[in-house]
């Protein structure tokens, strides 16, 4: 009885979580353009997808920004984390508090603040400003993912390496980085997820020339989203889902990373 109740409850929660997603996937095969009715099965929107310049451009911007922001903020954040870990107590506390600002601040405040800065220094809003903004909000998360791993690190490890004749840079590459690698990977994954899904900060920093998928969807939402967007999202969603399931099957460790 209790077990049935639990199952029923979890079932309802999952229904709540998945209903909109299933609906979107269904719509991507719906030949009727109106979102209220079913006009029969079609793959038209998937075909259209490859013709639509607007969507293609937004997709490319989204991916390029996400990849660049992930690479840059992962490297930048890892280096910074190693530095922060070696700071004295007080400067470390100050740096970490500053680092937490973009994490704790509402996105909208981070967005308008960056927009204010860019406009004040006459930086044309566009690709560059959006990339900088993404690095600004991704790097803190990388640092937060890497720092705990550095803390767990045996402080004598680097010393042992150097005792055995390794130069500091060699010790860093061959001893420290491999040890904190899981932290770096999860930092990179968080960064990528945040960047690809971001709307608010991009909205304020992208200007009028550059549009990513989120901005495109927002601008279309009130009038009705093109069904091709549903098709694209279905493809992206399924790609992630398959990737997750594959990793999950391969190792439980990978799954933990993604969670």
């Amino acid at each position, binding site marked *: 009885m209790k077990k049935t109740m639990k199952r029923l*409850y*979890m079932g309802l929660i999952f229904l*709540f*979580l998945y*209903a*909109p*997603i299933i609906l*979107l996937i269904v719509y991507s095969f719906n030949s009727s353009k109106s979102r*209220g009715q079913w006009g029969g099965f079609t793959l038209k929107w998937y075909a259209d997808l490859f013709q639509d310049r607007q969507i293609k451009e937004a997709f490319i911007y989204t991916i390029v920004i996400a990849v660049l922001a992930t690479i840059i903020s992962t490297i*930048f*954040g890892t*280096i*910074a984390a*190693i*530095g*922060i870990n*070696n*700071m004295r107590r007080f400067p470390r506390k100050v*740096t970490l508090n*500053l*680092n937490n*600002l*973009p994490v*704790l*601040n*509402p996105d*909208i*405040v981070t967005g*308008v*603040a*960056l*927009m*204010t*800065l860019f*406009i*004040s220094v006459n930086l044309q809003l566009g690709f560059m400003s959006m990339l900088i903004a993404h690095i*600004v909000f991704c*790097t803190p998360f990388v*640092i937060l993912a890497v720092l705990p791993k550095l803390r767990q690190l045996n402080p004598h490890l*680097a*010393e042992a390496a*150097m005792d055995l004749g390794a130069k*500091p840079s060699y010790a860093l590459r061959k001893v420290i980085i491999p040890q904190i690698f899981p932290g770096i990977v999860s930092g990179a994954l968080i960064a990528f*997820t945040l960047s690809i*899904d971001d709307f*608010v900060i991009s909205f*304020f920093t992208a200007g009028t020339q550059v549009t990513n998928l*989120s901005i495109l*969807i*927002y601008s279309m*939402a*009130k009038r009705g989203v093109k069904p091709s967007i549903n098709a694209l*999202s279905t493809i*992206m*969603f399924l790609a*992630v*889902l398959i990737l997750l399931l594959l990793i999950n099957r391969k190792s439980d460790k990978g*799954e933990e990373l*993604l*969670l």
Partner: protein
Amino acid sequence: MRRRMKLLAYPYSLWMAVFVVVPLFLVFLYSITKGDIHDFSTLEFSLDSYKRVAEPLFLKVIGNSFFLALISTVFCFLLGYPVAMIIARTNQKYRNKLLMFIIIPMWMNFLLRTYAWMAILSPNGVLNRFLGVLGLAPLEIMPGQGAVLIGMVYNFLPFMILPIYTVLVKIDRSLLEAADDLGANKVKTFFRVVFPLSIPGVVSGITMVFMPAVSTFVISGLLGGGKTPLIGDLIEQQFMSDRNWHFGSSLSIILMVMILISMAVMSRMDRKGSSA
């Protein structure tokens, strides 16, 4: 060695100064001045924009944002706690899978999911068609606060479940056995041991839900139909269409302060909860 390693943090410190501190300072500066935002020499000290925030119309918007965020946080808590508990009590083999299924929806674009809710809740949307088939009267949820609430709960529920789950799953089983051993039944064990121990998770869950909920403009924009603007909508308007940065900045500062205060309150509760 240590001394040289810490140099690695300096470029990032500089970066933060330029892209975190300066922008926030500019927002603060604009909030306490008036004049042409493009020409610093015209700026002069003024609290006009704060005075404008105090007008009843805007106070109502702020109050409404606060209220809606609070209600959605409460709903997320009431819905999410049992989910976290059920997952934490699930056999280890299935636990991570269940958790994964909680997270997967977040991999679909946030705006698109909200858009899907428009399709479900709109006057002739999926829900009302379904009700029609059952012979029931259609619901008028969207546009309106109810729809905004559903959107918020939907989007932020995982943020409530995950931190609570993380704390619950770490509670040592032997503590539950000890409570059991000392005469507490399931209900008493929950209220005297499990719940107090899970307060840190609840606190971070509440923070993670309340903060984006109080500052959102997307959900209210799409599902609220502009009938009941939130503080996020106001800020967005000031910066994107009305171009009144001074007013927008004061609203941003107010929003930050509101969140800061609620976070301070929450962390106090956290400390009290885990030591009482």
